[in-house]
């Protein structure tokens, strides 16, 4: 194959999905000459599975990406067709924003954003090989022979790497949504000593709205007030027609169809080797594992405004196409369903655990980063979160600045990356609120408070936005302070309000903050006793309310966080030789040698490393340090 010199750039991002877009935008916005490669320009930021962004824990991630100066939230806000805040009754830490997205418009808007971005060069090309010298990435080569010299590369290959589609007993090489797979790059990575693992995921069928009887299903409407992911749209009020989703159920007939055809499933016949995610089971898997359940929920979601295509959530399957059609038509409201795209399972290569640093850089090859499904995660938001971090860190590294690691107490992003890097994953990793130990601190409402200073420091957040952010918290802190000082006298209206809310009456005056601390009293209830609160924006009020109401709990968690931070600050020397440490169990030494944790805190989270091992390690490091003196 003839090759040509295509020029010199700072960073090459391979893949323009949700990880790649954030990574490329971060690098370009930080002033680096950035290439973004995609096998097909029409597949940029494609939602290859469900047409929504956010939801539990994922909403947190999307908002955190925005707080750092990322793009996902802004583009989602631009293109949403339904907005819902989930879990409003379950406590402030788990309020989760989810939006149904116009899939096509999202892609167009993201592509336009990339195209308009200075320093960003968007290329339709498949990267087939990497140039690696002295264990450092030096360049990338396209399938057409272009050789780009770069200082860093970020791999965001999604499910493209050696992708294989499986529908019943039919299998073929392919990427998501009818795209080509990227096979050569997988071989190149192997050649350069990167160990790969095989993962599997899947997607349900798409059907034509014309053939769906939504009248017999339960509509799922959006919230009256549309809320947004991005800080830049906070408090914005818009009137927009929202499109409902619909809920229906499988039944005993569906079940019978599946049971009769189970032998044709590649999962049960052994064609599929990849490990699939437990949280995304196929319908046949659900039927087999939960045999006592008579029906399963199916959500019909619109794919956009300018299309009749609808997504059938709950019907992921790798059964043959003819079975899929029968199964669909057994469901109430889908009796005449016209399947437009069939469900499929996809197998792909990902980087096996233990090969990444917390900065998402490869341990083996310098300046080579990766983000998204290639790292073993699943989900658009998980991908975007890693994308922005890999982008920032690649930029920091090649400009000689300090790289940024968000820890578990600072964001879901930190939990996600630490889990993937330190614990490793054998199935595609999905973010869940239950994975975050400092959940009460990692709320959507304070994502900016936690991360915008970091975004500002890295250069992704503009001075103008940073000032607005500071102003927002000036107001919040001032108001909290004021509510703690302001006493409201006992009056007839106060007595009435308390009685209505089933709250204990007061005989003397009471501080507004004390009233607000009562679980049954909301900030809206005390507005009539304080003119100033009444004038505040809803999101500011809500932040004040959470901060006062849960003050004690938040303070308690902050003590836990201080302890956590102490352990994270206790660094392990990079050159440490675990085989030399007397008393470390072999299993622990082996795990530690692979993961090479940077801190005692990180070491303690590696499975198979016991508290006693940690003590041995601490003592060794301390004694070693003193010997050096």
């Amino acid at each position, binding site marked *: 194959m003839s090759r040509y010199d295509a020029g010199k750039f700072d960073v090459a991002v391979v893949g323009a999905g949700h990880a790649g877009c954030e990574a490329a935008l971060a690098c370009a916005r930080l002033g680096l000459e950035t290439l973004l490669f995609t096998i097909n320009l029409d597949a940029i930021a494609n939602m290859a599975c469900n047409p929504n962004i956010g939801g539990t824990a994922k909403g947190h991630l999307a908002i955190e990406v925005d707080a750092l100066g990322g793009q996902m939230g802004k583009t989602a806000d631009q293109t949403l067709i339904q907005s819902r805040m989930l879990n409003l009754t*379950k406590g402030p830490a788990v309020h989760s924003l989810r939006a149904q997205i116009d899939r096509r418009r999202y892609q167009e808007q993201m592509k336009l954003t990339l195209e308009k971005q200075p320093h960003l060069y968007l290329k339709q090309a498949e990267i087939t090989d990497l140039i690696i010298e002295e264990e450092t990435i030096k360049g990338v080569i396209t399938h057409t022979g272009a050789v780009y010299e770069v200082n860093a590369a970020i791999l965001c290959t999604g499910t493209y790497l050696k992708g294989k589609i499986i529908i019943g007993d039919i299998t073929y090489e392919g990427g998501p949504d009818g795209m080509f797979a990227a096979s050569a790059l997988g071989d190149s990575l192997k050649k350069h000593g990167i160990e790969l693992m095989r993962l599997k995921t899947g997607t349900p069928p798409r059907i034509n709205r014309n053939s769906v009887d939504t009248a017999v299903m339960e509509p799922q409407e959006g919230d009256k007030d549309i809320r947004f992911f991005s800080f830049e749209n906070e408090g914005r009020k818009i009137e927009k027609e929202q499109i409902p989703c619909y809920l229906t159920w499988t039944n005993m007939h569906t079940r019978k169809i599946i049971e009769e055809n189970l032998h044709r499933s590649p999962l049960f016949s052994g064609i599929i080797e990849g490990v699939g995610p437990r949280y995304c089971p196929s319908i046949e898997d659900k039927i087999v594992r939960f045999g006592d359940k008579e029906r399963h929920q199916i959500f019909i979601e619109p794919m956009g405004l300018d299309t009749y295509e609808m997504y059938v959530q709950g019907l992921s399957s790798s059964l043959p196409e003819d079975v899929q059609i029968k199964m669909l038509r057994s469901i109430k409201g889908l009796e005449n369903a016209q399947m437009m795209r069939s469900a499929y399972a996809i197998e792909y290569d990902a980087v096996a655990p233990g090969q990444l640093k917390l900065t998402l850089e490869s341990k083996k090859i310098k300046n080579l980063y990766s983000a998204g499904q290639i790292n073993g995660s699943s989900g658009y938001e998980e991908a975007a979160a890693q994308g922005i971090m890999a982008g920032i860190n690649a930029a920091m590294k090649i400009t000689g600045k300090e790289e940024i690691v968000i820890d578990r107490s600072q964001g879901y992003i930190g939990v996600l990356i630490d889990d993937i890097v330190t614990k490793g994953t054998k199935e595609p990793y999905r973010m869940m609120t239950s994975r975050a130990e400092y959940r009460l601190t990692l709320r959507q409402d304070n994502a900016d408070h936690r991360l915008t200073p970091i975004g500002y420091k890295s250069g992704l957040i503009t001075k103008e936005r940073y000032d607005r952010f500071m102003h927002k918290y000036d107001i919040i802190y001032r108001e909290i302070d004021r509510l703690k000082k302001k006493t409201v006298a006992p009056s007839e209206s106060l007595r009435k309000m308390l009685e209505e809310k089933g709250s204990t009456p007061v005989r003397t005056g009471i501080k507004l903050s004390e009233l607000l601390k009562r679980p049954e009293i909301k900030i809206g209830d005390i507005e009539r006793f304080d003119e100033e609160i009444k004038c505040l924006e809803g999101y500011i009020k809500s932040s004040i309310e959470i901060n006062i109401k849960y003050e004690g709990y938040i303070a308690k968690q902050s003590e836990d966080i201080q302890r956590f931070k102490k352990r994270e600050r206790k660094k392990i020397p990079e050159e440490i030789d675990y085989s030399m440490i007397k008393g470390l169990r072999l299993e622990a030494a082996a795990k530690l040698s692979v993961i090479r944790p940077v801190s005692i805190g990180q070491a303690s989270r590696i499975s198979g490393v016991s508290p006693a091992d940690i003590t041995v390690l601490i003592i060794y490091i301390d004694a070693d340090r003193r010997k050096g003196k």
Partner: protein
Amino acid sequence: MSVYHDFTHTENDTIAAVSTPKGTGAVSVIRISGDGAFNTAEALFCPAQKTREIKDRQMTLGIIQYAGEKIDEVLLTRFRSPGSFTGEDMVEISCHGGMYITARIFELITAYGARAAEPGEFTKRAFFNGKLDLIQAQAVQELVAAKSKKAGEMALRSLKGELSEKITEIKDRITDELARMAVSIDYPEYDEAEQDISRTQSVIKELSYNIKKLIDTYKRGCLYNDGVRIAIVGRPNVGKSTFLNTFTGKNRAIVTDIPGTTRDTIEEYLEIEGIPVVLTDTAGLRDTDDQIEKIGQEKTIETLERADIILLILDSNEGYFNREDEILRKYIDKHIILVLNKTDKTDEGRLTDLEKEIPHGHIIRASLIKKEGVGQIEAVIQKVIEDEIKGQQEDIVITQQTQKELLSQADNALMNAYKEIEDNMPADIAEIEIRNAAAALGRLLGDEIDEEITNKIFSKFCLGK
């Protein structure tokens, strides 16, 4: 999520230990170390000379007291960080060497903000604060290294099979509940996710009760450490002090003919079958207006409550009264040895009548003044202790301070969660404490809680696209 004990040295939390060997030496030394050492000690210590300030590195004479009760006269020395063995703020309390007194002071110290130190923890802290030289440091490293090899298994082994099963069962039910909560939070749109918080609340209540029952076994569990408490009780002048004196061969209690001489409780320590035994003589049982005696009566009740064995002595000439009957019924769960004393002065018919009247299976006839029946009583006590030892080997009991502490942590966390649900706090607030409870039990068992919850979410609930 999990908080490792092994990290505590970086946190300077306050630890305490009795640093003299166990037993009944003349003096015991209790050491406290950590940020809160001064506060803890000073909350309990009252200098003999009120005006005298406690100075660093100088012994101060004073009293350890609690709720108005003077526990012991002690010498207290304060060492300010870094000029101490561990390099942290430290306090040393020298108290009288009685097992009971030492244990009581230690208990108060742990109630006032310190926790029981793990073995070697003082040395470990000294090491981390640079108070040991390199050779000593390496010795510590080797020690810990040797220990760590088996630490994991040992922690498990110390939990006997059945106990570990019991705790696992409780932990499993907590993680079930957590998985349920997690599903309800992470998959709100699924019908699987319906969560009934009042159900969670009642589960918490039940589990907290079960944990409390386990904690209660600790007293029995530490038989070897803390010993067996025997309370001697009876009406004035039935011969309680005589028994104590005869039994211990000492002459500590004052024996006179005036009723009510033994106004305060008197303790003697001995060892039977390798088990430390505390004998407590109580004030006589009777109604009184005498202020001092009233206090004595209250103490009697307290002593009875704490006792493992109650030795109830009757004067066979006087007979069996309501107070004695009350004790027999109230403490039916404890070992009660009933002694009919002064049989030398009573005729056989009366004795037989009395034995019929008293609803108690095992009655010993004695003439304590003539040392008759003492051997028999001793034999019964011995038998009870042997049974206790056997029982301990078979029963589900917790035997270690750490076990007790982690169980208490779990229980406290559950109680907090219970209250939060009661107060209508949202589920995710209560979840934090429930998770703390699971983490505490997980540490006790050496289990990874977080992974377990995630596994349960997907194995027990049908979710996902």
